[in-house]
């Protein structure tokens, strides 16, 4: 009996020495440390709308939709698993994982991101080729390269029309030097 009381008193002493352990969390910020991955944030100025993130996303929450000459990049962040696959595949480093984790909301619409890009339509058939930004990027890269080929005239053609043009114009075909 006496032994038991002493052990309880010891325990009380340990608890007193520990002091206050509880976080005052919602009233005081408690930022996550290390490489915590929170809500993905898109840098709209860098993004070219290529859709690499939509291919990589395991939860398929990123969708692309081409309507009326505009491409819509849509994020449904409610089912995001914060795996950062989208960040890893982005060729423009336009996505980053922010440390924000306080994402609770009463409506799922708060967890959506819509970004709209202008599309380049094929000059021959009117099909969507790619976004204006990615066509501009390819144009700049070709201009800076040392290949000196006049491929830049065909950037506003879709793949099918490009193929047709290449078949019907023999001068475009590359000569194979033996």
């Amino acid at each position: 009996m006496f032994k038991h009381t002493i052990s309880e008193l010891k325990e009380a002493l340990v608890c007193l020495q520990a002091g206050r352990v509880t976080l005052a969390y919602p009233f005081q910020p408690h930022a996550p440390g290390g490489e915590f991955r929170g809500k993905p944030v898109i840098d709209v100025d860098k993004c070219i709308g290529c859709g690499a993130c939509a291919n990589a996303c395991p939860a398929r929450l990123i969708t692309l939709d081409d309507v009326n000459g505009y491409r819509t990049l849509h994020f449904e962040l409610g089912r995001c698993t914060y795996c950062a696959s989208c960040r890893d595949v982005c060729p423009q480093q336009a996505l980053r994982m922010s440390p924000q984790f306080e994402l609770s909301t009463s409506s799922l619409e708060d967890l959506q991101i819509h970004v709209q890009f202008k599309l380049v339509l094929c000059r021959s058939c009117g099909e969507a080729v790619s976004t204006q930004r990615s066509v501009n990027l390819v144009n700049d890269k070709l201009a800076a390269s040392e290949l000196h080929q006049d491929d830049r005239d065909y950037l506003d053609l879709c793949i099918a029309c490009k193929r047709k043009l290449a078949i019907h114009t023999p001068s475009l075909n590359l000569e194979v030097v033996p």
Partner: protein
Amino acid sequence: MSRLLDWCFKKSIWVYHVNAGSCNGCDIEILDVLTPYYDVERFGIKLVHTPRHADALLVTGPVTRQVRERLLRLYEATPDPKLVIAVGSCATNGGIWYNSYSTLGGLSNVLPVNIFIPGCPPRPEAILYGVAQALGLVPKQVESQIVMEA
């Protein structure tokens, strides 16, 4: 009436935890919230063993087809007024199982949800924040983002 509801939800909501097909990641984070380090009992929140004592249902998991019927029975057994809290990406929007044949793709397809706490799993702080937001102690932090290119 709504003011009365606001008043009675300010303190001591008792929570019944429902696992609706969760992988147990979120359940372990809920367990963390109950430890002295996070100590959710300072808001008067505690887990109860039956939905008949509960004010709030804390649901994790994407709601499998098997659990749907039990979930509806739990919801009916909870006395009004009641809160439904969806914890984790699965309960919020179905997670990576959103279009699987065996799940119903999120809690909002089955029950009216009061607050969503996304995360895979959500940090204990995120769960605390969500509950505090449901109690009206802290503001909402996320907003939808719409960007149009000219």
